[in-house]
């Protein structure tokens, strides 16, 4: 075979050893292979083209193939009948079908184990106790918080009510006291405005048990009116009237 000189020169520049190798492929070809190859390829091409046409026809939803009568009725039973046969197949048989290479490969795990590992492992399992992990419930914490919150709220409400009522009571007392003072202050003011003569006449008219009319003015003049602070006390007023009566009785006698 005549070679391209440029190719040969290029090869010689890179490697004279390779350039010296005969550029012939040593592989053999079956006799007459190339003689029949074109017809074989053409037949193959046409056959595939026909298949594609059949697929196109099928996709046009035109039934091309026929199915035996009752085929689908018995199909499920037929498949089920085959299943137990396959189930009986062992793992080794299954592997043999899937991959003969793996089936023939040794099943030894190449990993190394420290000496006496399994012996010590047995001992370790029997003596050691497995620590029990502490379980912290989230719900419990939440429950406690809930109770604390409820108690705090209740305390707040109770305290508020208590303080509110106390204030109200104190306030009422102050208001009452104030009103009393105001009423009594007005009474004394009115009494101070009354003329002594009128007072005497009143006393005569009302007659407080045997009092002499002539002595009344003196009695009124001489007796000291209670102090303002004493005037407020009912007990003192009663006492004062009793004392006044005693003086009147003594004067008469």
């Amino acid at each position, binding site marked *: 075979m005549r*070679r*391209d000189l440029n*190719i040969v020169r290029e*090869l010689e520049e*890179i*490697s004279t*050893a*390779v350039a*010296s*190798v*005969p*550029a*012939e*492929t*040593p*592989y*053999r*070809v*079956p006799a007459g*292979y*190339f003689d029949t*190859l*074109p*017809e*074989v*390829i*053409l037949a*193959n*091409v*046409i056959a*595939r*083209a026909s298949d594609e046409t059949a697929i196109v026809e099928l996709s046009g939803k035109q039934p091309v193939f026929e199915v035996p009568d009752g085929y689908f009725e018995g199909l499920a039973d037929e498949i089920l009948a085959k299943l137990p046969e396959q189930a009986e197949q062992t793992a080794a048989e299954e592997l043999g079908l899937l991959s003969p*290479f793996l089936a023939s490969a040794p099943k030894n795990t190449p990993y190394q184990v420290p000496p006496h590992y399994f012996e010590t492992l047995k001992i370790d399992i029997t003596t050691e106790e497995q620590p029990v992990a502490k379980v912290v419930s989230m719900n419990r914490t939440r429950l406690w918080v809930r109770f604390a919150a409820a108690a705090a709220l209740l305390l707040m409400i109770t305290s508020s009510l208590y303080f509110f009522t106390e204030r109200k009571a104190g306030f009422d007392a102050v208001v009452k006291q104030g009103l009393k003072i105001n009423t009594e202050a007005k009474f004394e003011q009115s009494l101070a405005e009354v003329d002594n003569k009128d007072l005497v006449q009143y006393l005569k008219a009302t007659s407080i048990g045997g009092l002499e009319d002539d002595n009344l003015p003196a009695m009124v003049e001489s007796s000291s009116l209670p102090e303002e602070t004493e005037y407020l006390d009912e007990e003192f007023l009663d006492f004062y009237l009793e004392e006044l009566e005693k003086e009147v009785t003594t004067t008469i006698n």
Partner: protein
Amino acid sequence: MTKTEDKELLLLFRDPVTKERAFTQLIKKYQEKLYWHIRRLVVEHEDANDVLQNMFIKVWNSLENFREDSQLYTWLYRIATNESLTFLEQQKKRSAVPILGEESDLSNQIRADKHFDANRLEWKLQLAIQQLPEKQRVVFNLRYYDEMPYEEMSRVLETSQGALKASYHHAVKKIEDFIINH
């Protein structure tokens, strides 16, 4: 391989009346070159035959739309190369020795050939070629066996000429090293 012949073949192919005749002529014209290109990559004849058949089926389906922006044989070589590399990829996945890789598998197939002779340089060369990465193998084969110009090769492999020259250079060096040491 003249352009005129290829253009005529294309015209005949596009005519339904002459389509099959044109296709047969096309196969006869390129079958050996394409076969050996595939065979040097996949090694076994049965595998090369399968790849070649698949390749021409694709040609039958696509030739009508061939844009003629490159030469017909460049286009055919591209399909043949892609089909071969796809086949090798599938073989790699199915390989019983995935760790060692496809190179070891093909080397074993070469040694298993009944005509194999370890003392003969052409057999050593085949073993050396299997040590190369796939694409470098293709570059070497196209340049060394098919004597394809780098310009044409760059269209087949869609790689720059500079990269192809460098790849070819490295491939030759590796093969030299293998032949000397084995």
